[in-house]
């Protein structure tokens, strides 16, 4: 099939203003949108810039806005988008070049939430693992899937309004630690979530959940955080 690929372009070294370029390509329905971008870069315009690495949806490099919806270009198949495909950078972060955005505000928000395991109590006397039941492990399984691609955060209107808002990805990470029975810093994280740039800015729009390429139930996770803040219950 022939696909018309419309791509957002901006090269700060030469362009004063962004524009769209259109490319016509022969494609298989099972081609990834990433494959099309690679072909444009390889044969038509080498300067086209985008991030990518694993090409199968686990590294989180190639989050893009494809036909208006955030997705990973390596998990977006042509057959799911049809003959006209528009590719733009994810929104709410400054465009550096073409499809590459400045990820710094995203990672800064991630770092705010203490995104690491904290347990300063002594290890078990035998030096072995901290025990955790299958049920306790299951409690936070969904939020361990996050690959920090930013599909969720950059689909959130609250984040578009202000990039100091923690955003769903940071809250997914907070959930992963707060509901881990072995972690000891739930109250500190809940306090961070309660600050003005925190969880109160989530208006349950569900864009994040719709956008997540790992199918994490993000709105549900944020709901559980809200409940924990109100009740203090971490079950």
């Amino acid at each position, binding site marked *: 099939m022939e696909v018309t690929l419309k791509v957002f372009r901006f090269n700060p070294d030469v362009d004063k203003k962004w524009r769209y370029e259109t490319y016509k390509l022969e494609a298989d329905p099972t081609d990834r949108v990433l494959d099309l971008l690679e072909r444009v870069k390889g044969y038509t315009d080498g300067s086209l810039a985008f991030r990518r690495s694993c090409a199968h949806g686990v590294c989180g490099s190639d989050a893009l806005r494809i036909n208006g919806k955030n997705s990973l270009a390596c998990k977006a198949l042509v057959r799911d988008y049809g003959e006209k495909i528009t590719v733009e950078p994810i929104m709410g972060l400054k465009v550096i070049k073409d499809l590459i955005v400045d990820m710094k505000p995203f990672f800064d928000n991630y770092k705010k939430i203490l995104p690491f395991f904290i347990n300063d109590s002594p290890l078990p006397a035998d030096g072995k693992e901290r025990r955790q039941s299958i049920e306790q492990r299951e409690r936070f399984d969904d939020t*361990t899937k996050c690959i920090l691609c930013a599909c969720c955060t950059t689909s959130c209107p609250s984040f578009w309004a202000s990039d100091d808002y923690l955003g769903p990805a940071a809250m997914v990470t907070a959930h992963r630690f707060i509901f881990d029975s072995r972690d000891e810093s739930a109250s500190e994280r809940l306090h961070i979530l309660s600050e003005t740039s925190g969880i109160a800015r989530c208006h349950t729009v569900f864009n994040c959940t719709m956008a997540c390429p790992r199918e994490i139930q993000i709105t549900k996770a944020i709901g559980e955080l809200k409940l924990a803040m109100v009740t203090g219950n971490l079950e």
Partner: protein
Amino acid sequence: MTQNHQFEVVVVGAGGAGLMAGLYASKTAKTAVISKLYPTRSHTGAAQGGISAALGNLEEDRVEWHTYDSVKGSDYLGDQDSIEFMCQEAPQAILELEHMGLPFDRTPEGKISQRPFGGHTNNVTGKPVRRAAHAADRTGHMILQTLYQQCLKNNVNFYDEFQVLDLLTKDGKACGVVAVELATGELHVFHAKAVIFATGGHGRMWEITSNAYAYTGDGAAITFRRGIPLEDMEFFQFHPTGIYKLGILITEGVRGEGGILINGKGERFMPKYAPTVKDLASRDVISRAIYMEIREGRGVNGSNYIYLDVRPEVVNKFAALDGRTNPDGSPIKVTAEELLHKLPDIVDFNRVYLGIDPMTQPMPIQPTAHYTMGGIPTNRYGQVVVDDQGTIYPGLYAAGEVACVSIHGANRLGTNSLLDLVVFGKYSGLKAAEYAKSADFTPLPNDPTAFASQQFDALRNGDGKENAFDIGRELKKVMFDDVGVFRIEEGMKNALTKLAELRERFKHVRVNDSGKTFNTELLNAWELGNLLELAEVVATCALNRKESRGGHAREDYSKRDDANWLKHTLITRKNGKLEISYKPVVITKYQPKERVY
């Protein structure tokens, strides 16, 4: 404008090995971790099935069994003292990851859960043993996330999206690296006492590959250009189960959970090739078996793929036939729901890329380029050793897939890659920091960026008659066809001729993007140059080794030949010509014998 930095230890690469090295080096030395990707994009994150240790959480297991299985898996080319060291370190390494918060799956008693994997056996009964500790089918993802998080907690200095281009040396010592900052195009000189390369493998030189775009052998190519040898480069692992045509990895954990390989006639064929452990034989054995089935016309629909079947009724049927049971002795009766829970990403890959549900349909698979066994020669402390005498190159270290300790010998055992990077990442970091405390800074060479700039200038100033994308495709095709699962002299000679042609054509490539901001065209062309450099090395070493061993299977020399070839290959380039020498394999307890699964 070149920017200058000074650190005691510089780590290149931020996958599992680089993060572990950075974490440990930074405890006592001023350390920087430089990576061309954001650390969480590293390819460690794509590892699925597990990380092995003889924890014995579900049944009896012993460090000695893990050691022997790894030696046997390596087809006796792994150095046994280093393998012993790794397997001894393994239980503590995994507990340390747990203490860092890694969310392993759990047993009913709350311990770390373990599953069977290819080549992991009870050495008394010969039956598969549960040794692979796992977090669903995203164990590598959890290791990468956990180590990155711990680095953040410990304020490790990161230089994200900086591509290292050159190793700086003076007076026979490493003294830093040159890198380009991708966002600005500026060159940076990192002056260091110790440099650790942890840049991963070079699996992108094959057409069907499970490897990330980033896997272009940068570290190996950089050090090779600076005269550091490479070891055992003929050995590369083809994983038996990649998604047909795409190469995306389907973890061995699928077979660990009872999945079965089925040919086009609907037959389970592995018992013919590995009568005891069958579908859980070592990867090289299974990849060859799949090729044999296809070659003899038993591919699916006469095509070049077969099926991996993990439908619950199939799993239960063959578990009963094989006499496999649960740890408590009860018969195995899995449900789709349980399998889905243990293998969520595998189900997702199949749904997204093939539109099939592995719980109701078998998966079409073919062997896929997967893992670099060879690499920069090191000892068990990550110190780079440049000859057969164990001579250390001062200040230079390597760990993870880019290194060749040699743990994996001719064929890596599944799950030993994650173990390798945790154990040797740690020791290289500790050793480099220790060295940095005792050593002074070696002065930088004059004009430190000259060689890096020269490489970039060549790519900018070609006449543009050739297209880099085409050269890359032709490279991948010839390597997959002629230096793949099976090899023969004529094919490898053909590959070397073709590779020489491609290297010549590469000189005519011109990067059209003249900008400085995220010039990924320039970066990708430079990466292709690394692959071309290493492909010639791989093919040369493969042609040279006249035997079959592990991942190196020759049709014209189909037997292992211990009398002549029980030795490591070392290769260097001297005056433009590739030169091969050898070093002995360290054998402690396990004398080579025939390898039967």
